[in-house]
């Protein structure tokens, strides 16, 4: 139960953090993708860094991603890495949905398909127990996150 609450909060914070970051960064002048010289790209990067620091959306997004990382680390203090990592991949599914509903992104069938496969994978992982490594006695195979 604790794992479920912590990981779901972490995943939601990450999804909204990514949305905020995307909204913030899209408002900033677009990054040139052509490969320029080193000093040219350096000045470009510093210019973008300045603009980024002044975007409230970027700050909110960063804060939410810090919340994610703190909760993720906390979960790792008691649950398996091989459980927590794939479980948090459910965030990709939320990202696709959030991109669709909040950012108006067009989501292809392939990406929806990927979201379904991830959901299936997370269900499998959540049924495999959350702690196997360095297990205190009597606590083998605690209930999974989505059970």
């Amino acid at each position: 139960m604790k794992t479920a609450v912590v990981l779901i909060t972490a995943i939601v914070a990450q999804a909204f953090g990514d949305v905020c970051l995307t909204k913030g960064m899209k408002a900033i002048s677009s990054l040139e993708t052509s490969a320029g010289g080193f000093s040219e790209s350096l000045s470009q990067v510093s210019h973008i860094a300045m603009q980024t620091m002044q975007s409230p959306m970027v700050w909110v997004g960063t804060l939410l991603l810090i919340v994610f990382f703190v909760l993720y680390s906390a979960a790792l203090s008691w649950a398996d890495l091989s459980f927590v990592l794939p479980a948090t991949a459910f965030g990709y599914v939320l990202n696709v949905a959030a991109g669709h509903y909040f950012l108006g992104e067009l989501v292809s069938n392939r990406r929806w398909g990927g979201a379904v496969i991830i959901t299936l994978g997370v269900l499998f992982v959540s049924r495999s127990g959350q702690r196997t490594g360095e297990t205190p006695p009597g606590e083998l195979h605690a209930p999974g996150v989505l059970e």
Partner: protein
Amino acid sequence: MITAVLIALVVLGGSAGDVFITKGMKQLGEVSTLNAGRLLAIFGRAITNRYFLIGVLFMAVSYFSFLGALRLADLSLVLPATSISFVITTIGARLFLNETISPMRWAGILLVGIGVALISIPSQP
């Protein structure tokens, strides 16, 4: 070639980072309090834990390799390629954290990796 090395650094750095951070957090012990003062104390111990810090350092290596890889190759190549890290991290968790990966968990992890790869290939315009 440099792109391949950078992608390898993204994956291995991220996996090593996750393994070290887990090792550090397991060393701290289970976080099971909502008391603000105690949480702050745990936070303080985490950011001074050697394993945790090494983990964060590997994460940074992974992140900057990712930025570097993006300068040389398209996101459409780099992002799906890094979805292999679900498998690499799991192998790391098994070898270095003594986690038992049941067939059920392996199946789930493989599905997650495939799904992430599918999601991260950008749609053709």
